[in-house]
């Protein structure tokens, strides 16, 4: 397998007396979809936030694309190409697709060579280009996002990450709020990211999604990585057993 693009080694993070992430090693390779699994409180989100810079790990290092990003601020990490798409998507639903792809980075032109105005047609065109690349169809680009479906909004968030040259996309429960056809679309998007050689870290509770797109399953429990299973060897049963902890404790342990 190719050199890892992201390597987290020995990462720990405590909150008071609670060890949320405990000496975790975690790798992502180019063009790979890694599912990060675990029960609530297993440490998935904390680990992700240590990578995206939201939290500062107390020990360990995070190397991305050859550079140590362990204690860099979130904005710097984003500008290096790690895009996190949270469940709430961080979109302005009162604005159109173009405005959202360029949120906070609006392109302006000079009106009469003097007054700087937002160049809406350019932004719409660029947005349309990246949507086409991802094979996303949105009926009208002048529509406000509030008029789009949940899957289309998710697609806009992904398109935005793509447009700004994401090198690694982290997605937190991307299908949680969607209907079945929409879920399929989002999974197809994840596949097309992989085809573009862009790795994805997928946090999900939905076993079906994970089995459908992930190349590798990393399972966390009580702050530690307890299993790292390639897709070929994974079955739902094995995964669930690792998640609830019965794989460590033996077949007969009953978890309540």
């Amino acid at each position, binding site marked *: 397998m190719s050199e890892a693009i992201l390597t987290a080694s020995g990462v720990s993070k405590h909150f008071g007396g609670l060890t949320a992430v405990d000496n975790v090693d975690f790798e992502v390779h180019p063009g790979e979809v890694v599912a990060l699994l675990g029960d609530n409180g297993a440490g998935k989100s904390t680990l992700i936030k240590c990578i995206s810079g939201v939290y500062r790990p107390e020990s360990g290092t995070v190397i991305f694309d050859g550079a140590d990003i362990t204690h860099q601020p979130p904005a710097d990490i984003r500008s290096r190409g790690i895009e996190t798409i949270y469940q709430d*998507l961080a*979109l*302005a639903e009162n604005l159109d697709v173009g405005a959202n792809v360029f949120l906070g980075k609006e392109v*302006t032109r000079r009106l009469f060579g003097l007054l700087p105005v*937002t160049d809406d047609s350019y932004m719409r065109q660029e947005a349309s280009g990246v949507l086409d690349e991802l094979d996303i169809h949105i009926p009208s680009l002048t529509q406000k996002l*509030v008029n789009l479906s949940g899957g289309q909004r998710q697609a806009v968030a992904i398109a935005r990450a793509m447009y700004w040259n994401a090198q690694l996309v982290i997605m937190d429960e991307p299908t949680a709020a969607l209907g079945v056809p929409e879920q399929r679309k989002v999974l197809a998007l994840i596949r097309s990211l992989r085809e573009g050689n862009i790795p994805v870290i997928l946090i999900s509770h939905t076993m079906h999604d994970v089995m459908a797109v992930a190349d590798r399953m990393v399972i966390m429990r009580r702050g530690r990585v307890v299993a790292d299973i390639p897709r070929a060897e994974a079955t739902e049963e094995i995964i669930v057993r690792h998640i609830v902890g019965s794989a460590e404790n033996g077949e007969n342990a009953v978890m309540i």
Partner: protein
Amino acid sequence: MALSTASDKAKRQPIVDARFVEFLTKSWSYLFLLGLVVFFSVTGTGFFSVRNFSSILTTSTLIMLMSIGQTYVVITAGIDLSIGWTVGLSSVTTARVMRDLAAGGADVEYAMLAGVFAGLLVALIPGLVNGLLVARVKVPPFIATLGMFGIVRGAAFLLTDGQQVVRGLSAELREALRGIGNGSLLYHIPDHGLVWFRQPPDLEPTQIRQVSQLLPYPVLITALVVIVFAFILARTKFGRHTYVIGGSEEAARRSGINVDRHLIIIYVICGFTAGIAGVLHLFRFTAGAPQAGEAALLSSVAAVVIGGTNLFGGEGDIMGAVVGSLIIAVLQTGLVILNIDSIWQFIVVGVVIIIAVLVNQLQSALERLQSNV
């Protein structure tokens, strides 16, 4: 198969044409304004005249100026309750500075300029404090600006020593103020035709009553402010960020927009347009009055809402506030001309506000309906 297709079609057939509803919800306030003008023109003698229209426009400037800044604030899902007294504070400050400078022997022009400058500057202070409280201390806008409502009110009355007006403006100063506040760039006078800048001093009383102001200065000044702030909101990056914050403050923060700084600037803008309103009020009435904008505060919020700006943020524009202000001014004048007790104006405006909110909800319901198809 054929049956199910037919029933599907029947289900999707909207009750009313969606485009028609969209047109109605977007432009009902314009149509309503037009309807009011037509109604009063037909029923009220003297309503349909250049003279009256110019007076309506002049009347509307106070509310309109306040509603410009208010629109920015409301788009960010805030509200500014303090601007009514900011108008007064600005009016009083301007009057005092002019009076004292003129009394100290300064030129009238210089005293006026310095007064205007002071009046605009002082209006930025409550705006700045509001902005700091809302953005940095996270005080809800309603509470922060309600507190400022009391503080600014007190400050304005302190500056008049508790009086209803600033006393002691010289006759010369008042004449100069009136020249702008009640003046016009262009007059139409029977037998004289069009006259620029100044009404001829040698008119008969009967002629004076027939003079029409075609371009009153307060209207021109307000129009300029409308254009500048409408442009900023609709076309610039600053305006776009205002909508982003109104849509999702979280999204704005994550996309790197400096939300705190932006909110502070917006409350300062709100104070600024109220300051212009205060200065203009002084020019029109030649009396610095603490309560100059008191009654106009809720009207300015009403104008914003009637104009289609969503109180929950993210939606609205300056033209809506302009139309809303005009609706209120037309109602005020029209009801007087019809000889209806002006108290009715409150009731009618109240009803119009409720209609505005209902229409807004209809629009949201329609949007939901469309997105579910």
